[in-house]
């Protein structure tokens, strides 16, 4: 199932992965350094300034009180989506090609969730009181409001973060064990702890298999619920353009869409810079490409539907909203989004395109830019066209906001770079499973049947 030029042995993957962990080139440190510097300069510095000055540092106004911060929040949540979700689905459907890529996909989930959580902090007017959103007994006679979609968010994201971190960890226990035996010094100790003393006995494999499957089963509905709930932050308001029943599926599809695109990007990078050429192959890009195509069509469908309902409602509020979206101040962004997320992905129809790496990379990036735009428009176009025309006002992001967007990407990269040095970024044992298993002569290959 992988490149046939050479028969890979168990030891190859083993060595490759271990090398990817312990052998660290100069390039890596440079990249990491840049990422960290960028993160500090573009994320934390502006944020601290904003903490000092107030949200006024951003470009928001009345009535457009939400802005890019929340857009980034949705974006990162969305990006988090296909990681674990995809991996779970594929695990349950027991598809082989998943196995080389799912680890990094899950990592993506984890880190984009963390960045998303950071975006919430940035978004808040008084983040130093965020703990008030957590139900803990207190003397104030106050309590979070469980009727609030925002609190659904708190619950959902906490659960999702817990779930996906456990999922990725549990999946890597055998690999930790494997790496444990090949490392020394502090790394060894770390992996000793992480691997919980895994031996690989048949019982352990059996238990792991079950637990892993259960987790997968639990996490699929969870992931779906998470982005539905995020969508309800908006859909449960009565703002024209937001108050729509289609929003939950819209957000979920969008999330998986951008997430899958994200995976493509990450795959490409891993393949290129961690020399996993043999394990991450055309096949993966091909399959992901097909998935992307389907998702993009779904996405376009929902967008058309949204326009239609707006037009069909015939009410002034929805109608103005629609006009504004298509031809108003933000119209260029809207059409850019359509181009990137609706039109460009149609290229995926061609096999050649799907199986060529660089175009896929470019497309995946384009899609995620488009998806970010979508999230931004969802907020900007609706809030600046509220019910009372007298209160209409356009919102333009400030420098602080833009820099924080860049910074959040840097933060994601930083986390990911740290990850690839701690977690085996390709699942050793599952890749082994996909390999040709040594056979004893004269025995029917019943292993090969799975």
């Amino acid at each position: 199932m992988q490149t046939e030029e050479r028969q890979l042995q168990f030891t190859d993957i083993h060595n490759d992965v271990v090398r990817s962990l312990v052998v660290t080139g100069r390039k890596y440190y440079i990249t990491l350094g840049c990422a960290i510097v960028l993160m500090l300069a573009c994320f934390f510095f502006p944020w601290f300034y904003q903490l000092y000055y107030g949200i006024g540092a951003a470009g928001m106004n009345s009535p457009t009180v939400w802005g890019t911060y929340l857009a980034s929040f949705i974006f990162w949540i969305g990006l988090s989506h296909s990681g674990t979700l995809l991996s779970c689905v594929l695990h349950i459907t027991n598809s082989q090609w998943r196995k080389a890529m799912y680890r990094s996909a899950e990592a993506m989930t984890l880190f984009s969730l963390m960045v998303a959580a950071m975006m919430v902090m940035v978004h808040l007017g008084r983040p130093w009181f965020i703990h008030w959103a957590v139900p803990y007994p207190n003397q104030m006679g106050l309590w979070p409001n469980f009727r609030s979609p925002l609190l659904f968010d708190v619950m959902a994201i906490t659960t999702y973060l817990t779930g996906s971190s456990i999922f990725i960890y549990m999946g890597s226990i055998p690999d930790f064990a494997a790496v444990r035996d090949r490392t020394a010094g502090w790394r060894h100790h770390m992996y000793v702890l992480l691997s919980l003393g895994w031996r690989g006995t048949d019982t352990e494999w059996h238990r792991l298999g079950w637990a892993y499957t259960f987790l997968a089963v639990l996490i699929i509905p969870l992931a779906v619920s998470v982005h539905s709930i995020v969508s309800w932050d908006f859909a449960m308001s009565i703002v024209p353009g937001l108050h729509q029943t289609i929003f939950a599926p819209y957000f979920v599809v969008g999330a998986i869409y951008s997430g899958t695109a994200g995976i493509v990007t990450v795959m490409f990078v891993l393949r290129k810079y961690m020399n996993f050429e043999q394990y991450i192959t055309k096949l993966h890009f091909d399959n992901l490409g097909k998935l992307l195509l389907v998702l993009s069509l779904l996405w376009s469908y929902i967008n058309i539907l949204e326009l239609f309902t707006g037009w069909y409602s015939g009410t002034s509020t929805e109608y103005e909203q629609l006009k504004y979206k298509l031809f108003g101040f933000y119209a260029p962004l809207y059409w850019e989004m359509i181009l990137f997320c609706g039109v460009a992905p149609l290229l995926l129809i061609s096999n050649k395109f799907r199986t060529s790496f660089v175009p896929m990379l470019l497309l995946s990036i384009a899609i995620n830019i488009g998806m970010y735009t979508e999230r931004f428009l969802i907020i900007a176009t609706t809030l600046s066209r509220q019910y009372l025309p007298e209160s209409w006002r356009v919102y333009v992001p400030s420098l602080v906001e833009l820099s924080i967007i860049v910074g959040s990407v840097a933060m994601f990269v930083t986390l990911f770079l740290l990850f690839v040095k701690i977690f085996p970024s390709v699942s050793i044992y599952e890749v082994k499973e996909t390999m040709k298993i040594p056979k004893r002569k004269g025995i029917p290959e019943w292993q090969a049947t799975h």
Partner: protein
Amino acid sequence: MANVDRREFLKLVGAGGVGAGAGFMLAESIKHPVEYLIPYPVPPEEFSPGIATWYNSVCGMCPAGCGISVRTREGRAKKIEGNPLHPVNQGRLCALGQAGLQVLYNPDRLTGPMIQSGQRGDDKFVKITWEDGLSRTAERLAAARRDGISFLSQGVRGHLAELFELFMGELGSDRLLHYDFGHPHALYAANRKFFGEHQLPYYDIRNTRYLLSFGADYLTNWLSPVHHALGFGHSRQGNDGHRGRFVQIEPKMSISGAAADEWIPARPGTEGFLALGIAHHIVADGRYDGDDAGKWRASLADWSSDRVAGLSGVSEETISRLAREFAHAEPALAIAGGAAANHTNAVDTLVAVNALNYLVGNIGKAGGVVFNPDPVTGGSVIDRQANYRTMQNLIENARDGNIDVLIVNNTNPAFTLPRASGFREALAAIPTIVSLSSFMDETTLMADVLLPSHTYLEAWGDDMPQPGVGFPVGAISQPVVAPLYNSRSTGDIILGLAGKLGFNEAIPWTSMEDFLKDGWRQIYERGRPESGDFDAFWRDVLVSGVWGENARRDDSVVIAPGVIEGLAVSAPQFSGERGDYPFILHSYLSTAMYDGRGANLPWMQELPDPMTSIVYGTWVEMNPVTAKDMGFRDGDLVTVTSRFGSIEAPVVTFPAIMPDVVAIPIGQGHNALGRYARNRGANPIEILAPETDSASGNLATSATRVALAATGRRAAPVKTGGESRQLGRGIVQSTGGRSGSPGHSAKLNSIPIVVESA
């Protein structure tokens, strides 16, 4: 037929008697409020920390003379509300009045006497003591020629005005002038001409069923806005059964125009023709059956509606309809002001409008024109009111070096006189200028000696509102807080000067309070006191904040001889050729800043202009079509040029303004007056032509033609409002015709006029 009839009013005054001693105890309680959060180590007994104390006083923000109740906590003024007992505003107050607190607590107030240390105008002053300041001034006054002394004050009334009279009398100079930009000279002149009336009458909007307003923005700045607003509300929904109808005739829709049921744009300056046209109709239709009907018919003969229609641009049908409605409705009332009263033919116009009132016989009737008795004191002020001609005269004298000393009291001609008047130049020719202003305004900037006076919330004084409400009303303004700075009340400064100059036998008083008390003792005596105790009376007046008397004018109509025959309106003159200056400049008193005195109040700067929602700054209102033709978009910066200068301001398209008129609000464009006002917007007064109304000597502020030119730059004014169309969302809903709504005439108030004390 005033808003408060006698019994009710006296009852109110009586009610004020509760909790006597508000102002009385104040003397002890005056301490500097800054040092402590609760600034009274040993608090006087009527102060208990945490409990508000209300003091009644008089609003000094505009000439309307509303009564106010000021809420103070721990010796600091917190809130100004209308004095519910005061017949003028009956507990209500306008935005400007509310902002009085920011006059008191303005960060740019002058904190003590100073003298000019550099060149005039370069804002260099050094502090001196009051002793020093007063003696310097006294010396100059003593050294000056008798009629070389000029006293230029803002319009003040009551005993302070009398004190000015006394003082100037002693100095032997007749150059005592009260100057207010917005003073309705033409209205006074017209009433003098038509009725032979010295005082302005009381226009009873409350009880009228039909108000025909020729350009008078009676809801914003004409005479007594708050009182008119009360009347408006009541006439609209207050009287059960019927709803008053309001018609506004003006080239640019004002707030009153927006509130009116019908807004009729008429060519600027032709309001008088319209009035005559309507009068012609009334007489022609035989709606007027006085014994002098013949004379009327004769003098109105050649004002047929077709001719008037041609002149004014208002269709014949409209004119005849207005005439019919006006004659039908009983009572109906016609008023004129604003632009209509600021053309070169203003007095004619206003006389014609008076004729309308006369013809429908509403003189002296409820809902009509009610004559006012002379004010109890300070009535002579009216003759002291300086119109443009008088100011011109002063300016010429100054130029010729006939003025040795000029004392300026809280008026700002350097801002409110056109450049063309040459006032600023004239100031240069005056050796000594003394300013009593509380702020560093444009005029004070030119002064040599600064003797800053208290704000009206720190000073003793009184006021007899003019126009009154049909019967004598007086109100005492008492200090509601201790003086913030080392300033003195205007009265005390004058008395101080008098003392220095040794006018002791003529002006024996040492403090404004004593002077005031003596004055009010006479008022007390003329009221045939039931209770023989002046102090009790004094306290009651202080507590209730207002005093009234049931003396009314008989309602017999006296119409000056020869008026009917002389009835005619001359064509309005405009400065500038139509060719070079295609637009007529309609400059109007801004809602928030009145004549510019509000520009240093942040609240007023941030109060969106009701019509455009613009804050901070000046703008030029244009008809959208005209703007389109000239290729102007909203926010384009244009130069507005008259024969006498030019200013820059951004264009704002305004749906309700005549195509050949551009409107600019007055109030911004200060180059002094503190951080909030300085270098903001432009001042349209600067470019006004020095055209006057010959009959009243009033500056014809609407008689200037201007040209507009694009600068190519954009300077979109800051607006709080977005889209200003409803898009069929039914936000402001309206119902047609007659609504059987039960009205509710409100007399209630939430203010306990009670001082927490024993």
